[in-house]
């Protein structure tokens, strides 16, 4: 049990410090660690937990809390929460002191531009990893495609899309 908690702490501390470009960029690595390296859950369960995190209010990536819960109960929640939100927050606190000084340096803009393709590559990878694990029938594929299309082309609230997807899923059409 203790070794599991240490493993969770190590994984999420690393993810916390590597999450440039926001939470979703670390999703593929989180999935790789949790599903492939440690085999704590199936890829399908991971996707379900991710979906639950998206359906709940609050910051992105509440899947972190759920992974901790699923793997090690309340202690797991405590460890993943501290490990995921602690290190990046400490970096933020430290950065606040130096931010004013570097605000107008040209290298700051250079780095910001340079990080953008990595962010988008990681976002696309997240989308593929989660879609692969979530879509195994034609109807689920249809839900994914229509949701993606509506979310790109309209300003419809994401929660409506999640609700509609759940209801269509509930009919069980095409699922066993």
């Amino acid at each position, binding site marked *: 049990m203790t070794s599991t908690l240490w493993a969770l702490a190590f994984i999420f501390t690393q993810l*916390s410090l590597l999450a440039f470009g926001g939470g979703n960029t670390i999703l593929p690595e989180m999935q790789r660690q949790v599903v492939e390296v440690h085999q704590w859950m199936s890829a399908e369960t991971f996707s379900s937990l991710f*979906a639950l995190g998206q359906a709940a209010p609050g910051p992105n990536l509440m899947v972190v809390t759920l992974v901790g819960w699923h793997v090690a109960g309340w202690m797991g929640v405590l460890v993943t929460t501290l490990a995921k939100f602690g290190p990046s927050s400490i970096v933020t606190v430290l950065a606040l002191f130096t931010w004013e000084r570097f605000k107008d340096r040209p290298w700051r803009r250079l780095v910001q531009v340079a990080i953008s393709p990595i962010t988008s590559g990681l976002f696309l990878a997240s989308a593929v990893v989660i879609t692969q694990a979530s879509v195994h029938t034609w109807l689920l594929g249809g839900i994914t495609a229509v949701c993606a299309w509506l979310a790109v082309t309209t300003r419809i609230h994401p929660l409506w899309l999640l609700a509609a997807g759940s209801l269509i899923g509930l009919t069980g059409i095409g699922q066993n």
Partner: protein
Amino acid sequence: MARTPLDPDDADPEQPTIIPSVRELFTGFLMLGLTAFGGALPLAHRMVVDRRRWLNNAEFTDLLGLCQFLPGGNIINLSVAIGMKFHGVRGAVASLFGLIAAPSLIVISLGTVYDIYQDDPHIRHLFAGLAAAAAGLLISMAIRISLPLRQRKPLITVAALCFVGVAFMRWPLLPTMLLLTPLSVFITWRFKL
């Protein structure tokens, strides 16, 4: 919709701001955590700038720029930065804890329901539909984030390499970033992007 002079968007960008107490930081971010469905950032702006006036628009944009630059979720970093600005570490802890407390309890409740009923076919079907919709939303976010790269074509190589490596070759994140960040910085510098 007719705009009135009191419309918050028309507020003077240099308006005086109100200093929150540690308790107000906690309750403010607690409410934000409870009400922010599908992207907390627009709601955060409305709360921090328009309604509670903790920051003016320029300060908010500046702080958000820092938060986007650093690792971690933007809204998480923003709560820490705002708390820190007003009350140091105590404020940062109050804001962060306020932001994640309610959502944590809510997802754990949902997760418990999922654990108990995951063998029930109806619940399984419902969650399958939910997961498919969540995947669709993720695809839409990936598309929106990637579209601006059209203006910086040489960097599309880096994005493609990162995408294929992480999604299909399952490269670990740390070496990927150590490899691609210098490459990307070089391309950005070389092509003056």
